[in-house]
């Protein structure tokens, strides 16, 4: 088997076929091969959540998933959330000032979307538990949790 492998993923609704080296994480494949840089890179080892991505709707840290495991699957990044309007979670982050430098924001937004899809009416405690895998170094978490609650109201409507 050669060193370079070809995989096909459905990235944000568009089928993409590209080559990826063995063992390369999904995050690097998305950023470097497909030039989708909304998925951030930071810690490299699964601790910060800035690379959070949905595979078939399930949030995973894409620096920890070999790109080959996404072959044939639906992958959603922050670029895939808005259509003509922003996603309610994106609106929530704007309304509640849930960000400063914004580096962690795509990861938080992806996790929050997954949470609200699963549980449109989470308690504060449930939000905290669900977002444990995302770190923010500047906003503190209060505004972020407010943003998710704001978005949850829109989900309820």
């Amino acid at each position, binding site marked *: *088997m050669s*060193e370079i*492998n070809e995989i096909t993923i459905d990235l944000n609704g568009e089928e993409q076929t590209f080559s990826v*080296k*063995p*063992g390369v*994480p999904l995050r690097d494949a998305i950023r470097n091969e497909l030039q989708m840089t909304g998925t951030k890179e930071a810690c*490299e*080892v*699964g601790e910060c*959540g800035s690379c*959070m991505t949905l595979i078939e709707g*399930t*949030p*995973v*840290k894409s*620096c*920890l*998933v*070999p790109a*080959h*495991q996404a072959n044939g699957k639906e992958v959603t990044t922050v670029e895939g959330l808005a259509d003509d309007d922003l996603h309610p979670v994106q609106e929530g982050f704007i309304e509640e000032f849930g960000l400063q430098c914004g580096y962690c924001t795509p990861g938080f937004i992806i*996790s929050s979307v997954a949470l609200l899809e699963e549980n449109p009416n989470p308690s504060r405690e449930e939000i905290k*538990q*669900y977002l*444990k*895998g995302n770190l923010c170094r500047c906003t503190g978490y209060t505004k972020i949790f407010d943003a998710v609650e704001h978005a949850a109201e829109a989900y309820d409507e």
Partner: protein
Amino acid sequence: MQYYQPDSLSDAVDRLKEADEAKIVAGGQSMMPLLRQGLISPDRLVDITNIPDLNQVTISGRSVEIGALVTYSELLETDLCTELDLLRDAIEAIADVPVRNAGTIGGGVSHADPAQDLPPALQCLDAQVVSFDGKETRRHDLTEFFLDYYLTELAPHEIVTGIEFEMPPAHSGGTYASDTEAPGGWSTAGIAALIIPDEDDGETCVDARLAYCAGAPVPERVSSEIEETLIGNRIDREIVDEVATAIISDLELIDDVGDDIEYRKHLFRVMTKRAISTALERSEAPPLVEASQ
């Protein structure tokens, strides 16, 4: 490096055998950081996630079989975790939602990190690890499976296919108690407890199982002499204190990163008391009382 995604167990074993240094990948949650940090550099990765039938949870009567590829999140969704507080508590202590979404139970036990949260709970359930080495299916008692830091009884080409155990009686109670330095972080002290009271009198403890992680190079069942302190009595605070003190002298803590050894011993004492009293509360035995006169 080569990357294979075999779709049968025997093909996977063959792929592992024919390379100089091959590594299995399941959820990748531990493997990817090791690769990224250059701590390992295998010439071949054998990704086992396309092998069918390893992602089932099968319950027949009181026998439970959990396939190696079942993720922690999938396991949390099963009735098993509704019924078995011990298992649910241990899984909820693992990292965070996205790590649990990808991390597998087979990968967890094979990785053999001494701070892994699930092994103590499985040790209290007298679980066995089932593996396949290309020729035969082997069963390993989880109490003997771990040999040292990150080292198990598995041969390099041997694949864990699942975990098996018997459900404890419905009148038993269990829990996993742990302490961590940061939310979602690794446990600095973790202990699982399963208490089985006498079915007839409802209060004499007839079986007690305790196991800890992050206290020694391997997750470990507490020595039978210590467990026996709890058996044959109605458990009271004095007995619990005695057990918590005995466990501390059993620990082989190393002075690694994080809290100092004396503080961690203190944590183990607190976690042990918490685990036993919660297990007792959840059993059909009466909750903890002061020492009997």
